[in-house]
């Protein structure tokens, strides 16, 4: 394998893991089949566009991204999502409606055309005997560090257990003093914010447009399906298999075969191992 292929693989796996993280929380933990997940990635990717169109300086991009996504997610949770806990198929339909809503809203504001932004870090670095964009290397390192921190926090915090308790038996969770409305809203917003951040990080490397979310949604779903809902390790494995298969086959044969292989793999997992590779508890 050439060094560039390895670096590309690392980039693909890390970004997919980050994109899928929010869905792992919202679908894996809260059991909301969030079809609008990709749209939160999209909104995050629009954050630089929003910032510049408001005439704000570049360093405000991250706060703008966080604010926009948090606000959108919070309002949607209070108005719509909170009625859908425990109603998985209804959550799928309603969030599909939300996805259309968000796409149309963004299209009305920014138009249908592509937007692009430049990376905050220009230039390349010489790694593993190849020149590779410095921005991507920084992102890969950042994501790995972020996941390590999250993993550490997750082993200590009781939030994951409380969420699991709430989803499994909301009435009993209330009865032992868990404020389920606040906990579920918090988890949903957190999941959406990570998606928004993923969008912001990806923004300089892609074409930004209102319809871009669908592909991220689909790949996140399949990463979760393969890796198994509910654990960070599973998420990493799933992202590795999906992104790995797609980019390797894409490099060896062509994109279509990579795509078909990912779909076939997902079907096999859904059929034979619906809990994924890691179906473990946390």
């Amino acid at each position, binding site marked *: 394998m050439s060094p560039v292929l390895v670096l590309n693989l690392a980039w693909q796996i890390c970004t997919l893991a980050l994109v899928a993280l929010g869905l792992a929380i919202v679908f894996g933990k809260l059991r909301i089949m969030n079809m609008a997940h990709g749209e939160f990635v999209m909104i995050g990717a629009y954050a630089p566009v929003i910032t510049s169109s408001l005439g704000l300086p570049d360093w405000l991009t991250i706060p703008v991204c966080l604010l926009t996504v948090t606000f959108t997610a919070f309002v949607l949770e209070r108005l719509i999502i909170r009625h859908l806990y425990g109603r998985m198929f*209804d959550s799928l339909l309603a969030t599909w409606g939300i996805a*259309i809503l968000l796409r149309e809203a963004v299209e009305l504001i920014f138009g249908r055309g592509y937007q692009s932004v430049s990376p905050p870090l220009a230039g390349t670095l010489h790694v593993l005997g190849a020149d590779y964009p410095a921005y991507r290397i920084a992102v890969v390192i950042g994501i790995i560090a972020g996941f390590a921190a999250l993993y550490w926090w997750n082993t200590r915090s009781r939030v994951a257990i409380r969420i699991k308790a709430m989803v499994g038996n909301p009435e009993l969770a209330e009865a032992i003093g868990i404020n389920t409305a606040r906990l579920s809203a918090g988890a949903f917003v957190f999941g959406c914010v990570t998606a928004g951040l993923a969008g912001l990080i990806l923004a300089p490397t892609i074409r930004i447009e209102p319809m871009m979310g669908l592909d991220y949604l689909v790949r996140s779903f399949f990463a979760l399906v393969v890796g198994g809902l509910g654990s960070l390790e599973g998420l990493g494995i799933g992202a590795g298999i999906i992104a790995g298969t797609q980019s390797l086959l894409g490099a060896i044969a062509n994109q279509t075969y990579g795509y*078909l292989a990912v779909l076939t793999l997902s*079907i096999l997992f859904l059929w034979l191992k619906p809990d994924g590779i890691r179906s473990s508890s946390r």
Partner: protein
Amino acid sequence: MIPELFGDFLAYQIGLYLIYGIAAQGIGFLWGKTGVLPLGQALFFGIAAYLTAITLRAGNGLVLDLFLAAAVLIAISVFAFALAALIFRGRNESGPYFSLITLALVMIGEQIAGTATDLTGGFNGMSGYPSLGNIDLFDGYYYVIVAATVVVSLLLFVLNRLPANLVARAVADNEPRLQLLGFPTHVVKGAAFALSAAIAALAGGLFASHQGIVTPTSMGFGLSAELVILTAVGGRIHVLGPLIGAVIVGWASAELRDSFPYWELCMAVAFILVVLKAPGGIAELLETAYRHIWPERVGRQPGYIAAPPTKSAGLTGPLRFEDVHLKIGVVRILNRVSFETPAKGIVSVIGPNGAGKTSTLNTVTGNLRVTSGKIVLGEHAIDSRPPYMALHSGIGRKLQVPSVFFSMSVSENLAIAMMANRARLVDLFRPSTCQWRSRSLSGMLAHSSVPLHEGIVQPVEHLPQGHRQFLEFAMTIAAEPQVLLLDEPCAGLSSDETALMTNLVREYQADTGGLVIVIEHDMSIVEAISDKVIVMHLGQVLAFDTFEKVRSNPDVQAVYAGGTK
């Protein structure tokens, strides 16, 4: 009438909406009844559309075309049946995995349709073929579509009146219970999926001829999602709901999409509102309004007819455990369990909480698969049979927490139970099957103190726990199993209700002369009804003897004191 009144172009458009509506009706049937949500119906729609285009291009003449169309419908049904039956086999719920599989399949289909240029014309699709029988698309073809719509709707209306409809609804309601009543639920879901796929394929064939072009989008995820939306908006419960949804949404989009910039936004909001506030869709709102003006006449309860005898199980005789082990993960649930019950009589199972009593019954019905050892009923090993085979082996089961069809009325619950172990396939399609009533069930319901009133039309989820115990017991004995397994039938009952229940159990045993195995904690009940008692402790059989001997057994006294209500 549309062509005459509003012109051919509108008729042409309405024709297209009806085609989508037909496909959506298939989704409504599957989703509304069995609770299985298909996300890839465009796969069948698209395959049929491509095959129709290929056939029409070959120019075989109308007769051969129709013949081929029928063959395609059958082939797609068989494929869909096999797919669903295979995936649902060995499971007892319809989680999201099946929906996601259909989604992945349609994406594969779309990808292949877009890249296999030789076969499908690739991205540009197939076009330039004549319509079916060369009917004028702007005139006569509309009536072909209307005819297809009427046929499909009538078919679904008729299905609604048949016992098969109850069975399909029972799948969505409580699949484990339906399996214990002897229905192979994966076959039921497979059949429902096959019908919905055939309907989608019919729509796809009509579409190819109607549009004169088939592209990969006809087989895409986008179309699949749109069909689901039409179904949800129109209403998945009512037969006509998806049609209403398709025509209203289709017509309104065509009128407003270009003139009103916020149209798509409004559609999305309306769709979300329907999902949140009106799960029955437009059809339900219309029906409620209609019932407001013309209230439903309360029909006279149809009389009962004598149910046919149960299928003979052929398996009777003692139930024998031979060195049965059961492990779940690292936890040992059963450890070297061996015993042989008498061929008839009442056997009680007692023991501390967590001794493995319920698990023992679960291995008998196949809800748990033994790790090693053998379970034999009469002369046949039954330990590798799935739960839906239990009743065919002559085993009926009442679960610990009463398990009934919660969204159905008492009489609907009983009607399904009457079909268990009696109905042949053809009986599921005879309306009179719902009126079946066996003597023993009538006898039980005639007890003035049994708290089951068939006049109550409300779903039984509103019944208190204790009444559900009696309902589930009635449902279990309706199938007249030779071996009756009862898991704490008196839990949550008052002392009088307990006395009634034990009487019913005794009567049933006396009537059938079969074997009844009861898990019970109340020692006065155990003493009153048991011919033999099995004492379990830590996954093992501690003692197996008459009540007197068990009570004086020092090992038993050490672990289990007993008491009464």
